[in-house]
């Protein structure tokens, strides 16, 4: 029980926040507000699933913010060129996978440290997008872009359903598919994995491609919520997603971490901003609170394992 300490501490703090809101600002729980929070959190959850894979494999990807923006713009342009929505979805997901593959080749192929590679690709892709689009929105998209042409309610339902399915698929794969277990194995000890016949570099490459694919899907699902595409979308996504994964219990040293904790982490961090509005707290405290939540969650876990003197 005790090694799930961090997952439980996140779930507990989420419940505490919701109780406080129920007491102080019950209208927080109006369906319209909850749906808004969930539809905003859904793309972040999909990206967080990808990030959990990357971190469990003992790597990190801070370029997903730029990938997210590029995939959104490419999807918008495809829709603007009257492509059918299926093709637009394909463009978003495939371009994500391609960006992921680029990171994968540098990290798995050349063995470069993932934080440095994704730092470089984050800056390069973001500035490339600005140089190319010079900040222009993608406008006048056909009717069937927003919510895939469905009604708003149906669109939101589809978005939430997709996020839930992806989440459950990843939970299932990480627990019950050999491929998922390989990610844990490579994250735990890459050399032992190699000797057991698993190919660690291939697993690492696939993990980065999956990260890109999930980011592309998240970008698509976020873009269809609006009639036009803002090139500055996805700013700060990587920090939000890494924080959610870490607060949710994924060990940065790889090999450990449960996805349910990540779900609680995403929901907790997504509720802070709206909660501040409802609690009528001054707006400028949001970033300070987010920072202290990350520090508290990590410190609590560190203090517990230090006290227990676990032999890691």
């Amino acid at each position, binding site marked *: 029980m005790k*090694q799930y300490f961090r997952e439980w501490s996140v779930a507990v703090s989420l419940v505490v926040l919701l109780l406080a809101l129920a007491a102080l600002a019950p209208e927080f729980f109006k369906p319209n507000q909850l749906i808004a929070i969930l539809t905003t959190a859904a793309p972040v959850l999909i990206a967080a699933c990808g990030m959990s894979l990357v971190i469990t494999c003992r790597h990190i990807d801070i370029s997903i913010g730029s990938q997210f923006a590029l995939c959104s713009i490419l999807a918008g342009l495809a829709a603007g060129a009257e492509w059918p929505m299926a093709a637009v979805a394909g463009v978003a997901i495939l371009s994500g996978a391609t960006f992921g593959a680029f990171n994968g080749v540098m990290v798995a192929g050349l063995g470069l440290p993932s934080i440095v590679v994704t730092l470089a690709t984050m800056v390069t892709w973001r500035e490339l997008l600005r140089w190319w689009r010079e900040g222009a929105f993608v406008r006048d998209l056909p009717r069937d872009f927003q919510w895939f042409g469905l009604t708003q309610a149906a669109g939101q339902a589809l978005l939430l359903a997709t996020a839930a399915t992806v989440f459950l698929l990843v939970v299932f794969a990480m627990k*019950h*598919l*050999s491929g998922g277990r390989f990610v*844990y194995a490579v994250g*735990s000890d890459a050399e032992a*994995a190699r000797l057991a016949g698993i190919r660690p570099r291939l697993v690492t490459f696939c993990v980065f491609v999956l990260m890109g694919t999930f980011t592309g899907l998240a970008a698509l699902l976020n873009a269809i919520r609006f009639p036009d595409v803002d090139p500055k979308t996805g700013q700060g996504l990587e920090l939000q997603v890494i924080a959610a994964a870490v607060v949710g219990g994924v060990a940065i040293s790889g090999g450990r971490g449960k996805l349910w904790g990540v779900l609680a982490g995403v929901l907790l961090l997504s509720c802070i901003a709206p909660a501040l509005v409802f609690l009528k707290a001054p707006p400028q405290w949001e970033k300070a609170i987010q920072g202290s939540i990350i520090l508290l969650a990590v410190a609590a876990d560190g203090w517990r394992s230090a006290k227990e003197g676990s032999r890691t």
Partner: protein
Amino acid sequence: MTMHAPLLQVNNVIKNFGAVRALRGVSLSLCAGEVHALLGENGAGKSTLIKLITGAHQPDGGDIAIGGHVEHRLTPASAHALGVAAIYQQPALFPDLSVAENIALGLERPRPARRVRWGERRSRARDLLQRIGAHIDPDAEVRRLSMPEQQLVEIARALGAGARIMIMDEPTASLTQQEVQLLFGVIRELRSHAVGVIYISHRLDEIFAIADRVTVLRDGESVGSHPVSAVGETDLIKLMVGREISTIFRPSERPPGAAVLSLSGVGCRASGVHDVTLHVRSGEVLGVAGLVGAGRTELARILFGITPADAGEIVLDGVPLVIRSPRDALAAGIGYLPEDRRRHGVILELPVAANITLAILPRLFPRSWLRFSTERQVASEYCRDLAVKTTTVDAPTHSLSGGNQQKVALARWLATKPRVLILDEPTQGVDIGAKAEIHRIIRHLAASGLAVLMISSDLPEVLGMSDRIAVMRGGTVVAMSDAADATAHLVMAAALGQATTQGAA
């Protein structure tokens, strides 16, 4: 036992790493149901040969035939499929995953899309562990297992893989005598199932006990394969070292001086050590024998301040000490050559000179300004004394052989001019030639008045080197005796907890 077609045929294999020619031409044949010992000094190419057979590396010359069929592109996956299994000294396990999963990942063919059946994995792990008599919980995280337990998990995994060729690289390095007998039982069982076992060890007594044939490697070449019955211990050593080895141990001549370090009731709840009372006199080697897990390394860690004591009193030269960190121990004049040389003993990436002066930086450079000339001078002085074979003191430590790395670690602690030197398995994983040199150095240190506390699982070494022997079990000292009237049997009996006639000194 009929010797039908050889399971494994290695002929004239060559392998280079950069400019280093690791293997110059090795031939070896392994038949079904045979235990074939592989003997050789460190750096003779044993582990490189294993890596070739398991497909971790590809040979640059010669070829390897498994089951009579020559394999060209041997990879870990294809070797695995052909029934080759290896148990390494550093267990190739997944610390964060459960025992059952560790075993399963070794057995199942790596197909990503297959469903994992947890129930089946757990039951298969349980019965494999039972077969080798290891009672380990399949759901425990490997991270929390002791070293010998991890080794048994690896053996269970190899067994489960239905390996036809089982390679064991120094499996008994950290096992107790009891666990060694258990392992020999498993090996005999494998032999009866026509499995070929390649057994690598430095302990000649083990080779004579278990092996059918022995091949000796020297400097990357196989210099002879003989049935064990047709060859004696000294012949093997001569083949291995290619030169005469004088008797390994020489008893000390000088009577020991006054007590330097004395412990009374020392204990540390966290590491399971309790009320240890003993003393070490200057010029004396106090051997500390005992089974793995008896708390010997834990005691050393207490004395060196890594896990500070929370009971009892430590007195050095009459002065009571409170040691809360390695820095306090160092200041008090206690040196500690740790058990795990690669991780704690030396920092492989640093040059030899930096490693030697690492512990005495505050003394060598009080105003913390480094002067490379003094550092180089101190380092080369110690390299000369301990005969460390290195091109220059600026060479990175990872370019040295195991034996020389151990000497560099030893040099580091001698540089601190300690009053007491604690040695933890000083000659583990070191070849016979370097082992003899290290013993000579220890004898010389004791003779010059240093108090030495030597922890060792190598019984002949403990009996031969020590003036007095303390035996530990369950975290405390259970017996103490002079070397003269101690015998292997008595020490082992004390270690195992059978009734002993020896009164505590």
